[in-house]
């Protein structure tokens, strides 16, 4: 989030405070594969946004199945439902600014191609972060980092989208991701 907002030098501590507490070093993660350099066409941005929502949904569904705590389970179910709505809004926005209408199937095929270029499965993603699926705080913390990335993405995207209606759609999704982050934060505090 910081690197996309003019911060000159951002250093992520791998493993966060857990690494400090455990005093064990977690290998460096090369996560510098930024998909957005700010120069992409709005249509491309929407394709990536769609796949991000797919990824978020997939993540929440997996977490819902894994979680044992009812409150956590319910929140993940709710969050995954909202991502479906986001996907639909993104698809509508795409057709709104595209010169030719594409069917949902065609759109999903385009998105899929893009997503496969450099992807990680949810399982690999969880492993990369050393997330303990049985530790609710770990899972919520990862969900928060993903939502923060989504929020950052939408905020940057909205600056690039000239079409007012599309921008409003993106802003609305961004605000909802922000609300997700806040709910996850509250959930973390309640554990």
């Amino acid at each position: 989030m910081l690197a996309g907002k003019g911060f000159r030098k951002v250093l992520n501590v791998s493993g966060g405070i857990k690494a400090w507490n455990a005093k064990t070093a977690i290998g460096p993660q090369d996560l510098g594969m930024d998909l957005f350099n700010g120069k992409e066409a709005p249509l491309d941005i929407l394709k990536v946004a769609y796949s991000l929502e797919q990824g978020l949904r997939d993540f929440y569904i997996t977490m819902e199945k894994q979680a044992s705590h009812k409150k956590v389970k319910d929140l993940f179910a709710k969050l995954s439902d909202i991502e479906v709505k986001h996907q639909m809004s993104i698809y509508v926005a795409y057709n709104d600014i595209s010169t030719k209408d594409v069917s949902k199937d065609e759109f999903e095929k385009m998105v899929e191609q893009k997503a496969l270029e450099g992807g990680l499965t949810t399982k690999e993603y969880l492993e990369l972060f050393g997330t303990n699926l049985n530790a609710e705080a770990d899972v919520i913390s990862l969900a928060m980092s993903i939502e923060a990335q989504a929020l950052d993405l939408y905020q940057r995207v909205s600056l690039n989208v000239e079409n007012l209606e599309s921008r409003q759609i993106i802003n609305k999704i961004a605000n909802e991701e922000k609300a997700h982050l806040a709910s996850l934060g509250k959930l973390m505090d309640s554990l």
Partner: protein
Amino acid sequence: MKWLHFFTPAKSIDFNESQTYISQHSGEDITILDVRQPSEYKQSHIPGATLIPLPQLSDRLDELDPDKPTLVY
């Protein structure tokens, strides 16, 4: 479904590197940013760390100096 790397470019350093980095810079020259929840911050945090929980970060970026190296956890 496969995930993409959705991360903005940020260099990752491990625990040992971060300790060295902090010891080589005076507190005024770097920002140590804790983006966890206040309850976690209370339990333990890196000395001198500024707490801005992730849900508030996008609204509170103006509290930070973008010119200073920022170490985030």
